């Protein structure tokens, strides 16, 4: 089928401001949007720049704003979009070239919540035991691939780039609710700061954008509740 693809482009070495480039090409309806973008790069315009790697929704490289929704280009098919496909870089992070944005602020927020296992007890000779039920509590938040679809779809983040953002909260959730971890208080204190958790206005955009189907708003609410319980 024939598709008309519009891509918001910007080359810092040549352009003063971003512009829309249009491409018309023959694709299969079962192609991923990433296949379409690859086809444009490989056959029509080699300078088109974007990140990609695994091509099946696991590595988190190719988050883009596609027809108004944040998605991974490798996890949405042409047949689900139709003949008109508009692609922009994800919002709220500085655009470096075409669809490539500066991910450093995103990773800085992630690192701020101490996203690593904390347990100061002596290590047992075997694994630490954990019941299947306890393991299940934080299962969804372990799925995060740090693609930034959620954070860059959040209206609070768009207006306040220092807001820690849903991805960081999800990754804090992953440890706060892990029965083996001992760093919850420290993380909750960090999230309680002015650009932390309370900035969330439950717009739900994050949950809708997540390509891993993590119930993000629910996770954020659980962390909020935990903070209130511990304070009380």
């Amino acid at each position, binding site marked *: 089928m024939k598709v008309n693809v519009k891509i918001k482009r910007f080359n810092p070495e040549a352009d003063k401001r971003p512009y829309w480039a249009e491409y018309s090409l023959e694709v299969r309806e*079962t192609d991923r949007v990433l296949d379409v973008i690859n086809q444009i*790069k490989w056959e029509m315009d080699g300078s088109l720049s974007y990140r990609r790697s695994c091509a099946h929704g696991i590595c*988190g490289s190719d988050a883009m704003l596609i027809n108004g929704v944040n998605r991974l280009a490798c996890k949405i098919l042409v047949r689900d979009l139709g003949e008109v496909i508009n692609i922009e870089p994800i919002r709220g992070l500085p655009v*470096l070239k075409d669809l490539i944005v500066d991910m450093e602020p995103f990773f800085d927020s992630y690192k701020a919540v101490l996203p*690593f296992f904390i347990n100061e007890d002596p*290590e047992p000779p075997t694994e630490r035991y954990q019941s*299947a039920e306890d393991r299940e509590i934080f299962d969804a938040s372990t799925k995060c691939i740090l693609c930034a679809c959620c954070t860059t779809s959040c209206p609070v983040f768009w207006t306040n780039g220092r807001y820690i953002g849903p991805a960081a909260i999800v990754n804090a959730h992953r440890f706060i609710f892990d029965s083996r971890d001992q760093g919850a208080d420290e993380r909750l204190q960090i999230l309680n700061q002015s650009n932390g958790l309370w900035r969330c206005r439950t717009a739900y955009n994050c949950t809708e954008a997540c390509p891993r189907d993590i119930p993000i708003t629910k996770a954020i609410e659980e962390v909020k509740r935990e903070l209130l319980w511990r304070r009380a």
Partner: protein
Amino acid sequence: MSRAHKYDVIVVGAGGAGLMAARYAAQNPKVSVAVISKLYPTRSHTGAAQGGVGAALGNVSEDYPEWHAFDTIKGGDYLTDQDVAEMFAYDVIESVIELEHMGLPFSRTPEGKIAQRKFGGHTREFGKSAVERACYAADRTGHMILQTLYQQSIKDNVTFFNEFHVLDILLIGGECRGVIAYELATGEIHTFQAKSTIVASGGNGRMFKITSNAHALTGDLQSVVYRRGIPIEDPEFYQFHPTGLYKIGVLLTEGARGEGGILRNKDGERFMERYAPTIKDLAPRDMVSRSMYLEIREGRGAGPDSDYILLDLTHIDAHIIEERLPDITEFARIYLGVDPIKEPVPIQPTAHYAMGGIPTTIDTEVIMDGQNTIIPGLYAAGEVACASLHGANRLGTNSLGDLIVFGRRAGRFASKYAESAEFADIPKDAQDFTKNLLDKALNGSGTEKVATIRKELQASMMDNASVFRTEEFLTKQIKIVKELQNRYKQIGVEDKGKQYNTELMEAIELGFLIDNAEQLVYAAENRKESRGAHSHENHKERDDANWLKHTLVYKEEKGVRIDYKPVTLGKYEPKPRVY
């Protein structure tokens, strides 16, 4: 940013092996460590591994490392170095426990232990029946390993150079003194001086049309060292995973069969009963992929073109599928529009894993020849390396085991070496080779297109050098690779910019990929027997008298040269491989 850097230990690659190596090197307070990666670390392809990591914990049923070692050796069709397999089977137990201590969220047994499931080729009592050995976290075990190790690297404050492509290695006076890298953001060339360099840059599956591998897996360092005179060991042994999604190659874990999934031909027959009567669908991957090809060739493939096989999960409890295999269920739904709970999934073998690679000792030191001559300061671990754990065919789950076991060892041995070694001088012209490489691509005539050559390479490798091989097709493929090498000299790129020139990097990567294809086809053409993943139709039997030896492929002025290295045998005499 300064373009000259100096670290005691440099790690190239930030997947499972690279991050593990960095962690262990960083634990030595006497050395400085940095990781160079062409991707953000969490984009590495370790994250795509699904089914599990094999370790004889015995959490579900009785199991011992001796059984694991034997299975690995037999699975490798006796080309596995037996000392390596024995060390591995013990070490991987400790490594898995260590990952759990780092917080890795494994799935759990009812008692709260690490959950384990069955996997291809893993058996109890030396082949009697399948055993639960694969420690798993749903069907995203690799994702959890990658995330956990990246989390630890944040805790350890590891230094990263992200989106830096290593394009050359500084091999001077017979020792390694560091690497040269291209910074994608700026187009600048950086020199990294190091006492120890650990190569952990992953595989090369993108040389095939249908592959489970990421776009990034272009065998860069397999080519970089090869161009500098280091051989590649056993590249002819390339694994095709039986269950790739039809036409797109995305992996569906062997864990699906571990949970009871069955392979069926168009008649609905469970054909693996004919090929491996004892463990059936859980036979090693080389055997299953071959059996699938044979079914298709004999007209029993499913679909309108009779060219695929069906993976049937419909008899398994829907709850188990959703809980233990959620990701692959979603892949089938999204990419093929097939719901595995309701109908069988169309699949075909997909290029998956290189058993061969940069030759190393059991201690991850890179070696130069069949006499185990070490290159001081150079180490390799993970898929890019070949310590010869996997021999002629890797067992499922042993890749994740490989990453953590050999990543650890590389970190330990490389930092220990760096502790006592001195920084050696880097010649003034050290960047010239890299500048020349980039110039050629930037200013080439452009009469040939990168995408066209890559497509022809991938299609021809699939046709002529994949699951079944013949004298005729391998000879033909050698010719094709030579032609593509010549045509590659005429490529050009449209983007002449400095910042994020991804077109230029794709061009360079294609050059690397063609080298990888060269290594594979020359070695495959040379090996006149069938063993493990190398199935040669003109030489159908394994020939231990003449071919129980490792291949070493060298790139020399006159062309490709092949040499050999003995296999380290041990307790287990090579026997016919039946399951």
